[in-house]
């Protein structure tokens, strides 16, 4: 068993194809950003499956990659794969952000936080033994938005994968409360009683993220948002993957700020929540 996990499953391959590839393709085709200029922050895993695809098929240069890995053995493998061109940092990404060790590498056009465990589904909950851990992952995302904003990066993609499970009771309460709030806001009645944790997470996370993105003046268009919940072969729990395109909106006139943000938030939430979230099932 590869330390840090094996990610060569057909489900993961499909997620890369449906959610991750379009991010790079759009940067190149829609925003005229040469592949050689795209900067990429990722958690690639020891096998660097997606990185190798990017090098070979998209033309991303190794020098534009900053890879983070917490396990020593996997970090050594990534260091070798990047061949003295890209940066490998060993450690937990949350800790590296806390120590501000990654600040100097920003901005990034694609930030790929492919977590293999639960993430920030309880962002404001501080109870329980795992609360701090989850809080740190949420802070990681906040910091990514903040740092790209500080560089006035116009467009970037946030690719997020998290486990579709929650491990404490307050978490469930929090998610159900958020669903109720979404029902009220959008004006539709979704009944979460039969939903899995993965579905709950898939419905709630976009709302949390749009709020944080708008705080940093990034708008997320509902048309450029996508998500899937899926279960990989041989893995214990399901995963949820998201792709957010964050576009910077700089308003200079006083008073306009709150207005456009609440409108953007409402449009985004209404649009995504009114659709049925996708589940990946490979026949």
């Amino acid at each position, binding site marked *: 068993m*590869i*330390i840090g996990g094996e990610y060569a499953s057909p489900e993961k391959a499909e997620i890369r194809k449906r959610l991750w590839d379009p991010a790079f393709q759009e940067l190149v085709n829609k925003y005229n950003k040469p592949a050689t200029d795209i900067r990429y922050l990722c958690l690639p895993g020891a096998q660097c499956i997606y990185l190798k695809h990017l090098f070979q098929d998209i033309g991303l240069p190794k020098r534009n990659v900053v890879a983070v890995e917490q396990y020593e053995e996997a970090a*050594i493998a990534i*260091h070798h794969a*990047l*061949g*003295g*061109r890209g940066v490998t940092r060993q450690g937990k990404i949350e800790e590296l952000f806390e120590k501000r060790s990654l600040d100097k590498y920003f901005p990034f056009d694609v930030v790929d936080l492919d977590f293999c465990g639960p993430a920030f589904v309880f962002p404001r909950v501080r109870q329980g033994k795992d609360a701090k851990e989850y809080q740190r992952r949420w802070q990681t995302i906040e910091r990514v938005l903040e740092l790209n904003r500080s560089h006035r990066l116009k467009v970037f993609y946030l690719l997020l994968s998290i486990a579709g499970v929650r491990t404490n009771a307050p978490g469930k309460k929090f998610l159900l409360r958020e669903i109720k709030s979404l029902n009220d806001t959008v004006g539709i009645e979704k009944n979460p009683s039969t939903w899995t944790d993965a579905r709950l997470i898939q419905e709630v996370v976009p709302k949390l993220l749009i709020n944080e993105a708008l705080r940093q003046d990034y708008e997320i268009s509902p048309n450029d948002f996508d998500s899937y919940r899926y279960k990989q072969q041989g893995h214990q729990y399901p995963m949820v993957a998201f792709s957010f395109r964050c576009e910077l909106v700089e308003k200079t006139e006083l008073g306009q700020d709150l207005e456009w943000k609440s409108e953007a938030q409402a449009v985004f939430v209404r649009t995504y929540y009114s659709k049925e979230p996708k589940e990946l099932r490979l026949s």
Partner: protein
Amino acid sequence: MPPKKPKPVKGRALFRILTSGIYTTLTRALREAVSNAYDAGANNVFITFDPPDFIKMEDPSLLRIQIRDDGQGMSLDDFWDGFASIEITKDPTIKNRVTGRFPIGQFGIGAFALTPFVKEFTIFSKKYQCSPIKCVVHASRLLGQGENDSDLEYSEHVRANIEDQEMPEGAWKTVFGSLDSGTVIVATGLHFATYQELVEGSGYLSEEDIKGFFQNAPFTAGLKEIAWELSTVLPLEYDGNDQGGVYKTNKSYLKSSNKSIRVELSEVELKRQLHSQRNCVPIKFEYDTDGVQARGIIIANETTVRPSLANGVILRLNNVGIGGYTLFDYTGQRTFSSRLTGEIHIVAGLHDSLNAARDRFTGRKFDALRGALLNCLEKAAKEEARGFYEKRTETRDSEFEKSIQQKHAQLTRQRKPNGNQARKVRKSLDVVTIAELHEPSQSQPDLSSTRSSGVSPVVDHWSDPVVDIKDATGEMAVNQRHDLFKVYSGKSEVKVIKIVLRALKLANLRTEAYRKIIDTLIRLRKQEDVE
């Protein structure tokens, strides 16, 4: 009373002597690591550093150097009995039956070569049908920063500062990417002096060399030095693209009985270079005296060898460079000695004359070989000098011919002037037209008589000698004290007059005709001034 004997050597002191005392640069330590991989039968070695910006930007303690090879790997027993022990001696004259190679390590002391430069390094290794191993070597403690183990003897001292374990196959697969055999050494945390060496280099490469080397590689100045030295010393494949094509035509002289190894430094494949230039003169060297056999090529280039570090001859034993390029105190003219480069393979007879650091030979037999090499260098320098003078004469002659032809073409063109330019052009071309030589006011040269008489119109010595043939260089020089230069003083004029005077010399005119031309040239110039 027991017999007197020296006090036992403390392990820490001996360790220092065997590491810091021998491996004085990171490059040497890396070379040692590759040598170990070579002896372990590896075909490929990948040395990976962090990217240059990262090296410059980050704390030295975060830097990582990784050396991975696809050799036969080690079990824990191999690690302790072989790798970490200094009793092991390899006979460089006997081919290893498993690897099919002559060993290039000898004393078994290279295992800890990285110790003086890093804080810690970890060795991951897997041997066929054995459990993979992970050994963490606490380099700083081994060199004496620890307090507790200061009185331990060597093997205990080493044992106390290495954590060893067998690791799960999954962990090996994670590190290596497969379950094949091999070794991965990962050094983390550089000492500040090593860090500086890595960023700035130790200064033995000139700025010009640094700019010219490995232009697209992710290398700092220090890494360029490492790349240079490793590609010089290691048993790599020749880069067959030497400008002079020496490798292609002299393969038998450059062939080694020890096969080569492929080395990548941060994904840049290192190749051995011959540094020959176009039109170089390769001189074959063969030596078989007193049991010492050597052969190779010394190359006399047309210009100074670039990089200058490749000036001289590098000796190779079992295909490994011993030290750097050297001229062996050759004291010939620097102009020519700076153009020499070459490689000599020691085939037999000097395997036991190598020092521990493996950077030089010593002893009587080597001195004799050295003498032969000096003679060969001298011969190459002479060859180069002769070629140089011949070439220079040829070049000058051809330049002269060319200038005459150009002048002739110009005159031919100018004889057919048209439009308003006609008069102006006419004036300038008159300077050398034969018509001027036959002016009625001047006495005509008797050219016909010389032709008819069959006597060669040779003028051996001018009354005012203008042109000499220098014996040393073959250069045709013009004496600038000639009367012509008193009237023709412009830069381009002087150039033209020099050509004219050389042409007159080569034309072998009679004195009378010669004087006539000179006088005409002076008169025309003066006339021009008046106008």
